[in-house]
């Protein structure tokens, strides 16, 4: 009997995630898009030794900005681009609060970004019940943005939208910046050893960490914008089922490699849609996916050598001279 239960749960997982074309193209791939965008951002920040745990809040602010633009601006390609730019700017601005608090006031970004998550969640609750609520004032959400203000779908009958290309392009660009450009080199140098980077006299450590945090916020904000213009078409509470947190697992499992994020985002999207399928068809709570994500983080951290991973070094032991 137990075996039969497990078999039916696994079958539900398969049907919910990859087993049918609608599950794959309308569920899993769609869900991978925000995970890619936030995950690449988290990877960049962690590479620079900045612990941006605030992807969720930055994503929500991006969603707010793109909704406002989408509701009030004309549609068309230009309208969509402006909405997406606005979402990136909003996410960057939200992360910039943490960057300023870190640079000027020495507030740990781990704490500040988490606090900003809670502020953002309550801000969205307020907006969808207050200034941005739909005109009939019945539902806690905004009106739908115009059809012309939406990201186009790749083919009819599925929910997969052009955002998947944005995600892939962003991941490739991030990889190029990280490995081929001076800015990426500085970022990795700061992440590997801030004291060595500072001692070299050629890297402004505070500036690089702030830039990495803001860039990572911009990508999370963009994810919110893509989600609104490509999937939800409106702002409401629980717009994000914790993309900002899953993205941390995505980035860590990818060992902070932007191209690896493409694969791990797809893996976790599969896990999450599969878990939703199990909840629907087999009565297994879908939060079990976050348990697996957390276990993945711990497994990677346990398996990686102590000094073998770049994000470790910022908080590593001081060299004898610096103490």
């Amino acid at each position: 009997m137990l075996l039969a239960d497990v078999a039916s749960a696994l079958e539900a997982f398969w049907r919910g995630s990859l087993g049918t074309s609608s599950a794959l193209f309308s569920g899993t791939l769609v869900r991978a898009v925000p995970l890619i965008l936030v995950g690449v951002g988290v990877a960049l920040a962690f590479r620079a030794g900045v612990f941006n745990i605030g992807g969720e809040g930055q994503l929500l602010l991006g969603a707010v900005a793109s909704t406002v633009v989408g509701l009030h601006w004309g549609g068309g390609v230009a309208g969509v681009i402006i909405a997406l730019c606005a979402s990136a700017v909003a996410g960057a601005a939200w992360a910039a609060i943490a960057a300023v608090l870190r640079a000027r006031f020495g507030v740990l970004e781990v704490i500040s970004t988490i606090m900003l998550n809670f502020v953002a969640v309550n801000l969205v609750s307020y907006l969808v019940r207050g200034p941005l609520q739909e005109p009939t004032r019945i539902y806690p959400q905004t009106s739908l943005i115009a059809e012309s203000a939406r990201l186009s779908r790749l083919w009819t009958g599925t929910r997969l939208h052009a955002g998947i290309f944005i995600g892939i392009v962003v991941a490739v660009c991030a990889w190029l910046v990280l490995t081929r450009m001076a800015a990426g080199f500085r970022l990795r140098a700061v992440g590997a050893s801030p004291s060595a980077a500072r001692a070299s006299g050629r890297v402004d450590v505070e500036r690089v960490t702030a830039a990495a945090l803001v860039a990572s916020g911009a990508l999370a904000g963009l994810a919110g914008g893509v989600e609104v213009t490509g999937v939800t078409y409106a702002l409401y509470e629980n717009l994000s089922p914790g993309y900002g947190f899953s993205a941390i697992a995505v980035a860590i499992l990818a060992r902070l490699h932007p191209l690896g994020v493409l694969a791990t985002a797809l893996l976790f999207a599969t896990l999450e849609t599969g878990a939703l399928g199990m909840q629907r068809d087999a009565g297994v709570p879908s939060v079990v996916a976050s348990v697996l994500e957390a276990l993945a983080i711990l497994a990677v951290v346990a398996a990686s050598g102590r000094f073998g991973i770049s994000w470790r070094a910022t908080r590593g032991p001081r060299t004898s001279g610096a103490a």
Partner: protein
Amino acid sequence: MAGDQGTANEWCGMTDVSPFLEAAVRTATPLLIAAAGESISERAGVINIGLEGCIIAGAYAAFATGGIPIAGYTSAIFAGLAVGITMAFFAVVMRRDQIIVGAGLTMLALGLTGTLFRLREASAPLVTTEPVTAIPLLSRIPVVGPALFAQPAITYFAFALVPALWWWSQRTQGGLALRAVGDSPSAAKAAGVQVVAVQAGAVIVGSALGGLAGGSLVLAQAGTFAEGMSAGRGFLAIAIVALGRWQPVGVALASLIFGAAMALQYVVQAMGWGIRYELVLMIPYVLTLVALAARRRGVSQGQHFSYAPAMLGRSLPDD
């Protein structure tokens, strides 16, 4: 916060501040217990981001035990211990990054408690909350009497923890060893202190207190469990420790300020001042950011907190 409606009802038709003070102290209780635990862990040099996980695990354990406060609190402590032992193993013994391990454990605890909770029958049964233990005479003092002397026993425990912790950390060998490990592990080791054992022990004790804090959330406040009901209290507690400058008395004062900020929501609900509820819920989080920024000092070259243990957040060197 989930399930605090009972307190809101007490507000109806009242205009004096004593119910607000009472709610503030009661709301501060889990924050204080958790922050006291975190201060022990941080004194030994470990930032325990897994504290949020300890709280939700403790809350669920207390809820699942149901009914008898003493049994609920005991299982809450054990749940915190379980998280703490895992944290100590990865972050102290294996010397992995404290923040990533802690964040992973918090996600794990939130996910596990959510899964277990949803696997139960649909409706969330209420558990009996701990009764108020009013201290004779003292609780009759006008205005502050009910706030200070008509609280559940766990609140008295939380405040008794403050002088106890101060005495222990300042006046005993154990406390000295704890602070030495957080400030200079090599010196502590040279003095014969078992550095790894002290740090691991501090994380585990701190996490047990985190679990207890979660238990008090269920048994002395909400009377039930809700997914994610820790609502960032673990992170608030970490901020409280920094605001209180790693000193027990400072931590207690900071906890009371945050308790008051959280209790404000009941005032606004009851008074109908036309302020949006969601905006009031932001206050503790915004307050954290403002307070941490206002406490600026010693900001130079990566040395962020001048009052902080010197090794805070850094892994121990290899033996």
